[in-house]
């Protein structure tokens, strides 16, 4: 009886405040969560990139704002043999260094994939060239290639007595080009080797066992199991490696500064040389902008040539 008269207690849910309602709003949440990331991208990526592209169409110098000159910078560059030298060397450097890095890196990865004593220690040591700041390894190579104080020249001339004169590493064009490529390969191998090693370890041992039972040779196992299974990661690693190599700056700048007589300029070093010390911001930006098509092409090439496998997109192979 009394129950009937008592008001029935109902769990009261507090009316959500405006903040609560706001955070329940999906549209707001999307904007709020994306905003920091988008803002960072806009401020630190889109704006500098856009400014760089804008500058490429002006004759800005350090100390002068510059005016819009349209394609004038590019027209000059098309007739500039130094620019074409840099284009040539950038491509040559990237191609040769990438091939070298992948050949040696894959080899190293296969070796490290075996059961070796002190495996983890060895892997850590392999990473060293990649861990050392590039400028430091560049300085080390600068000493190694020094015309007067090269350790290699010293060994050949003073210790072994095989040569009368010091080796000319960076004094003339082609030796300088090859020397820089060697330094870049040395530095790039660990990145390739460790990445591919990670890929190798994901390959199921069952596949190798089955192949062994079928009487396969080592080469066949590599060709028909390891290589195809490694291809997706190979594509990714190669894309990164090409981009890193093509945009390399520190090695070249620290060792030769683009010399002798501009023979080892990469597009990145030439862009810096013209833009900052030379003061021609517009022209430097134009050189940097010309790198974009090459990079897009390299990325697409790696992607389409190496990674267009259906199973990578979640389907089975035909």
């Amino acid at each position, binding site marked *: 009886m009394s129950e009937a008269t008592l008001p029935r207690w109902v769990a009261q849910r507090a009316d959500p405040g405006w903040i609560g309602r706001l955070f329940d709003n999906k549209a707001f949440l999307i904007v709020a969560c994306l905003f920091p990331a988008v803002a960072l991208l806009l401020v630190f990526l889109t704006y500098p990139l856009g400014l760089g592209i804008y500058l490429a169409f002006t004759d800005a110098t350090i100390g002068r704002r510059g005016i819009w000159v349209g394609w004038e910078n590019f027209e000059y560059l098309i007739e500039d043999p130094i620019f074409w030298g840099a284009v040539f060397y950038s491509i040559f450097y990237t191609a040769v260094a990438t091939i070298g890095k992948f050949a040696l890196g894959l080899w190293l990865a296969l070796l490290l994939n075996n059961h070796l004593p002190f495996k983890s220690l060895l892997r850590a040591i392999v990473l060293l060239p990649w861990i050392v700041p590039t400028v430091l390894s560049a300085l080390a190579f600068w000493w190694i290639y020094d*015309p*007067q104080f090269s350790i290699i020249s010293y060994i050949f001339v003073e210790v072994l007595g095989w040569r009368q004169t010091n080796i000319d590493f960076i004094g003339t064009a082609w030796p300088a080009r090859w020397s820089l490529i060697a330094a870049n390969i040395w530095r790039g191998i660990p990145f390739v080797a460790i990445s591919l090693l990670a890929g190798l370890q994901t390959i199921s041992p069952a596949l190798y066992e089955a192949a062994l039972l079928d009487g396969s040779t080592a080469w066949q196992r590599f060709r028909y199991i390891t290589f195809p299974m490694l291809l997706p990661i190979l594509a990714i690693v190669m894309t990164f490696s090409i981009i890193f190599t093509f945009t390399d700056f520190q090695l070249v700048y620290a060792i030769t500064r683009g010399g002798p007589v501009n023979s080892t300029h990469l597009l990145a070093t030439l862009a810096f*040389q*013209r833009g900052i010390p030379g*003061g021609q911001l517009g022209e430097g930006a134009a050189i940097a902008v010309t790198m974009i098509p090459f990079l897009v092409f390299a990325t697409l090439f790696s992607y389409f040539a190496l990674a267009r496998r259906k199973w990578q997109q979640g389907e089975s192979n035909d």
Partner: protein
Amino acid sequence: MANIITRRSLLAATAAGMAATAIGDAGAQIQRREGGSLNLPIENGASLRMLRPVRFVPADEDNWRANCARFTQQTGVPVRVDFVGWEDISQQTAVTANTGAGPDLIVGFNEAPHVYVDKLVELSDVAEYIGNRYGGWLALAERYGKKHGTNNWIGLPFGSTGGPLVWRKSALDAVGYQAPPEDMAGFLDLAKKLKAAGKPMGFALGNAVGDGNGFANWMVWAHGAFLVNEDGSVGINSPQTIEALTYLRELYQQFIPGTTAWNDVSNNRAYSSQELWLTQNGVSLYFSLKNDPATRAIADDTYHSLLPKGKASSTPNAGLTMNAMVFKHSRYPNASKALLAFLLEAEQYDPWLQANLGYWSQPLEAYTASPVWHSDPKISIFKDTMRSTFWNGYKGPISEASASATNDFVLVQMCASAASGEATPEAAAREAARRSERYFRRRT
């Protein structure tokens, strides 16, 4: 200082008294002509900020700061000095000039005041007053200080550092030379003899901003060639340049191997390790040898002499010059000018010059008598650094284009490609002209 009228005349009077006593001991050798006046009423509540390139020797900075502190003491104007790395000062000057904010004064290098001339306060009054008191400005100071083709001063040069020949007396004695000869043919002969004796010479032909450009300029100027005509058009593709490059081709055969890969420190290292017996460098090489007991013997055997003139009338070397400027955006232009004048007075300038041991050489005639040039006879030739009639971008108007051409190694690479035989002298000169045209093109 007595002539700078401050708000507080009492303080100024005291300052004058102090200045008069100071010249008794510090500036005894410096001849000063009294007279003339500088009317710079210092603004109320003035305070100054100044940028300067970093020091060679610690005493440089200490001395500069002490001088500025003395200015504060005498005028009540606080001065803040920031020392900036050499590579950064031109960028910071650009930002200051373009934004119209920042330091009141900047001591930049070489052409800086000429690039930002419309942003600067004219300094003719200070320059004329100081020039009159200290025997006049030397040639290079006039060139870098005055706006092209006028008598209007836009910069006040504070000193210059040059790069003469540095050589080993024992090596030259061994091949029968007392000193490097003045003429180019004789110099080539010396090079051949040094090489035959296994004690070769060598000059930087790589991308070395200081040494490479110093050498390339010498080669070009000594043969009567030049990068820019008087009207500012490119003049490098000339028979004189080709003559210079043909000469260099032969001289290069006598060099120590590897100079095309040299940067600014390479010749210092090769010289210090006794592989190189004659080169071109600033005074720093000598001091580093002298101060290290291990190389003291090399320093004792080392001498400096001016670069061979060849066809030039004075030694073809343009020192790197510190050039002070005052910005229009400064709220205290008079205080800024007063500070520069104060720093150039003997009581301040001579102790500073001495503290620098010869790294910097004076822009004013009277300071030639400074005791610093008697401190070590081997550095005394540096006292004439600013008598040079050559400048960066000779013989055109001083502009940012000449700085760009220098920093982009146009002449160095012309010399390197011709010397190594990679290009004929004609082709190298044409290429240098092509690149310079771009830098020296007229802009709207």
